[in-house]
């Protein structure tokens, strides 16, 4: 199938972009999900606003304690850049799992968040790390919004543009893990992903644990803070990982469809979580994030 007709504009500055947006406009970033939807005529639009010529949106800087990734940061850069991997290795690892190389060359972080697929890899890591998006609109100027809020229905308002995603770097010594179970076959879209970080203190006891899940609820979700608090102070073990995994699985609200049953998705949350927590605990140490 071929796309239905639409108008096309390519603003060349952020101000021009934000100033021109009107109701119903759709932004084109990497296009790796949007183009199939247009070609299959699942999605019709009046005007397509190509943001790829807006300067600055591709800028991606790993500064002290923070990765500032422009909305047009390509998955390939997240997966391949040494500075990104050093600051947020869990994000780099997740980006490596997105699609295939040709998709990663075009696909963008901002687009992935705006697309808000409940199973996609990168939104889950943003939820894990409490990433914050800077969002601009003509009406409201700039605001900072937790990415988790943008992933909920209606999270990104009409006329709003994600400009940059601020992802806190892992703390020194914080360990991390990421795992994905994909649908079988070549498309290999994620069914379930789990990501986690672990901090350990003296004696190796857990002083901090975070985890996030995609593909098992209407939106990515994190291990609630109060639950994480109850998991501190222990030396990581299979039983400890199992306890965290159990809580993550209990929080799942999966659906059954022709890919997998709800029960399978829930079991896979627990299964992946055990592995991811063990990886994160294993990587955690006082000496940095190996």
């Amino acid at each position, binding site marked *: 199938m071929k796309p239905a007709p639409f108008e096309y504009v390519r603003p060349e500055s952020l101000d021009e972009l934000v100033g021109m947006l009107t109701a119903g406009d759709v932004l084109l970033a990497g296009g790796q999900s949007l183009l199939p939807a247009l070609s*299959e005529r699942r999605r019709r639009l009046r005007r397509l606003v190509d943001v790829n010529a807006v300067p600055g949106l591709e800028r991606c800087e790993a500064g002290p304690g923070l990765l500032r990734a422009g909305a047009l940061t390509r998955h390939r850069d997240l997966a391949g850049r040494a500075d990104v991997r050093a600051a947020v290795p869990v994000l780099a690892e997740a980006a490596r799992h997105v699609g295939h*190389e040709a998709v990663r060359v075009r696909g963008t972080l901002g687009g992935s968040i705006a697309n808000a697929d409940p199973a996609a890899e990168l939104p889950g890591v943003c939820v894990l790390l409490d990433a914050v998006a800077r969002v601009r609109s003509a009406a409201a100027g700039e605001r900072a919004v937790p990415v988790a809020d943008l992933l909920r229905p209606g999270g990104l308002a009409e006329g709003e543009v994600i400009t940059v995603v601020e992802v806190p770097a892992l703390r020194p010594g914080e360990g991390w893990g990421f795992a994905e179970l994909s649908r079988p*076959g070549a498309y290999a879209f994620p069914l379930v992903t789990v990501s986690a970080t672990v901090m350990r203190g003296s004696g190796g006891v857990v002083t901090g644990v975070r985890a996030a899940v995609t593909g098992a609820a209407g939106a990515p979700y994190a291990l609630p803070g109060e639950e994480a608090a109850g998991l501190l102070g222990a030396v990581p073990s299979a039983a400890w990982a199992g306890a965290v995994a159990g809580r993550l699985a209990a929080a799942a609200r999966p659906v059954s469809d022709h890919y997998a049953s709800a029960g399978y998705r829930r079991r896979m949350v627990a299964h992946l979580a055990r592995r991811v927590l063990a990886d994160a605990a294993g990587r955690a140490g006082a000496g940095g994030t190996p």
Partner: protein
Amino acid sequence: MIEVSFTVNGRPYRIAVEPRTLLSDALREQCGLTGTHAGCEHGVCGMCTVLDGGQPVRSCLMLAVQAEGRVFTTVEGLGAPDELSPLQDAFRAEHGVQCGFCTPGILLTLRAYLDQHPGASEAELREALSGNLCRCTGYQNIVAAALRAAGRCGVPEPGECSGERGSPLGAAAVRREDARLLTGTARFTDDVPVPGAVHVHFVRSPHAHARITGIDTSAARAADGVTGVFTGADLARWTSPARMAPPIEGLVPMETETLPSGKVRFAGDPVAVVVAADRYRAEDAGALVRVEYEPLPPVLDAEESLAGDAALVDDSLDSNVVFRGGLSSGDAAAAFARADRVVRTRFSHQRMTHAPMETRGCAAVWDAGRGELTVHTGTQVPHPFRTQLAARLRLREDQVRVIVPDVGGAFGQKLVVYREDVVVAALAMRLGRPVRWREDRGENLMAAASAREDSAEVEAAVTADGRILALRARLLSDFGAYSFFPANYMLRVVAMMLPGVYRVPAYSCEMTVVLSTKVPAAPMRAPMAVCTWVTESTVDAVARELGLDPVEVRERNMLREEELPYVTASGETYEDVTPYRAFGAVLDRYDYAGFRRRQREGRAAGVYRGVGLACVVEPTTYGSAFYRSAGIPGSGHESAWVRIDPSGSVAASTGIAAAGQGHETTLAQVVAAGLGVRPEDVAVRLGDTEVAPYGMGTRGARSGTAGGGTALLAARRLKEKVLAIAREMLGGEDGLDVRDGEVVAAKEDGWVGTGLSVADIARTAYLDPLSLPEGLEPGLAVQLAYDPPPMTYSNAVHLCEVTVDPVTGQVRIERYLVAEDAGTVINPAVVEGQVHGAVMLGAGGVLCEGIVYDEAGRNLAGSFRDYALPSVREAPAVEVVHCGTPSSRTPGGMKGMSEGGVMGSIAAVTAAVNDAIAPSGVTVSRLPVTPPRLSDLLDGRLPGVPGHQDE
């Protein structure tokens, strides 16, 4: 329109595009670079991959307007046919190409990857290629080619092959097709230039089953660029319906309108056709066609149809049952009465589809002055296609010419004259201008043809030591909405082959075929494929229930070579097959006892390994006598001509048509062997009905035997004439032969040149006919027809070892062995490629593929996101052992092959999974066994594995 400037392969382009024009379309249609193929247009298949500044991108996922200022490389920029780059040459050397439709995208993906990762490992290369689909090769030789290009040779050694030393028969020659397929210079249907053509788009039903109460085409007709909009009523005036009414006992005659006028019978059924300036406009107008439907209940469950509880799919029939039949021999009742044990098994294979990488399509050109229609289309059967199309259009056959260009895979899907083909041809005649159609992927998955939704219930009467006394089977097939084939066609062969390689003294089988509101069924590579699964899995069940080893039960029941010829319980005569030898060949190569040890040790550690065995007898060739005896309409003959032109160049043709099998290469080898010339000196012309003689086309693994056999006979006969002329020219010398294009004479120290070449003979034959021996006609050309034996049987034994992850349900194929006896092998590399691809096709059905309908009958698998094809990550490395036993009944000793790999892998992979999960006590009997399904099935039944109760 927007002007865009960019560079492709170093050349600047400036074109005007609409905002919505896909980059893939701009490259193909406006830059004329048709090497970039559109395989799905939703970003999954990887076929349209091009390089953008050296980085791979999917050109269907970019708009042409985004190309401004960019620098692209397409396959045409990698190398030319006479100047392949090392990467392209690696694909030719490793037989990494079959149909070649996926090849450009794979080459560009690899080009970018190897530039950045020279010397990449196999695992890295598999990962890099995992976003590129291929349906032919099983990925095996693609990986080999990638490794070669990366400077690593990890190529398994070829097995021994048959064939005389020095003969073109048996040589693993590189394929002559590959140079064009590797450089974007091949021409597939959508690449054929047809000046002035308008494009069609079919408006399809969203309902599984509904009465059409009205169609309003007025808005569509008024839309921009529209030539016309037509419906079933129009087509009924211009064309004849397809009538499927061969006189077969138990078969209900059926008729199919060119476009349905009264009701639709599956989601995807075409109800109207829009003709417009281009595909974009045709789809725009299609969205404006208003069809009013009165929904009817979908018919999705064959058992409901059998029980008479379902709605009627075809209103002109009394029931949804369109075929009932039976086979029996021996006294099954008595055998069951005296059996020590009756073992019962059930099987259910899901609906699949062929998913050729090139979808269907055609272009029709009507020459009103001459009254001649030319149709370009990728059919497997050009002459039968022409016969049927002419009849549907009420033309004489001589008014229709069918030209088959390069074909991007077929697998049985391109055997039929589809309704869409008839519509396109009729429109070309009515509108007086060329009309073309390229099916999109969604249509292909939802509306082309499907296969294999077969189920079986089997009872085996056995002795306590595992000897089979009798088999009883009840087979049921869901045929879908229409009869594109006689409804008994596929199931009849399943029933025929069910006894497999075993002595089955008594057998009875009931066959039932029912209609449903699903995509119509067609033969798909190994239409009988489930038979091996059913039989082999029943043998495994016998072993399980009696506490015997599966190998032991096979030993006890398997035919030995010395029992041949053997008439099976279904009346087939096996000869020149080697089931027991192939079984031994596989077990010799595999440490079976060692595996059982590893399996026990693994289980103790929570690692679940399994091994599956499958013994295959593959019916191939299907001569006319088979059709007659099986009550299936059809001829099995084939025709060929071979000619030597005055300069000595050789050309040949037969009625078969290639879709990636390499027929041009193998036929050249056969003709060269028969004539005594070099294969490279033989041109092969296929697929044009004005050039090729009338034959039955490519199907049923018949091309090597029927096509190759006929060509061999024609070449041999032509050689007799060459030798007769040579004898005359050499003064009556005897003991002559032709070798490498030279006439040679037998002397004491071997063959010695006579100074005469085939070119000399040809010159005489054409230009000096008075010098010919008395009674010989001028010229050097032979055309003949040949009807091969009713069946030639190949056989094979498959062994598959898997590991099952008991938690995720993921199955990994660890090892795959095939002992293949395909008789005289024309080209072992081609044969191995066929085995690899067939194994993957069967395994894909076991592990991931399937058409899924929801309860309303909507097809949920209308894209490659949802119809899951296996990738190179899942592809096994298949080890092929050749054990070529020539057929005593065919010219050259060839047997057919190419479908047996599917039969074997469905059985072997499933058996391996069942062996792995045996401690759970559950058995997989419904396919596919996707990871979620397997995990749900196991449901915590394996030690230490969580199930539902743990949630």
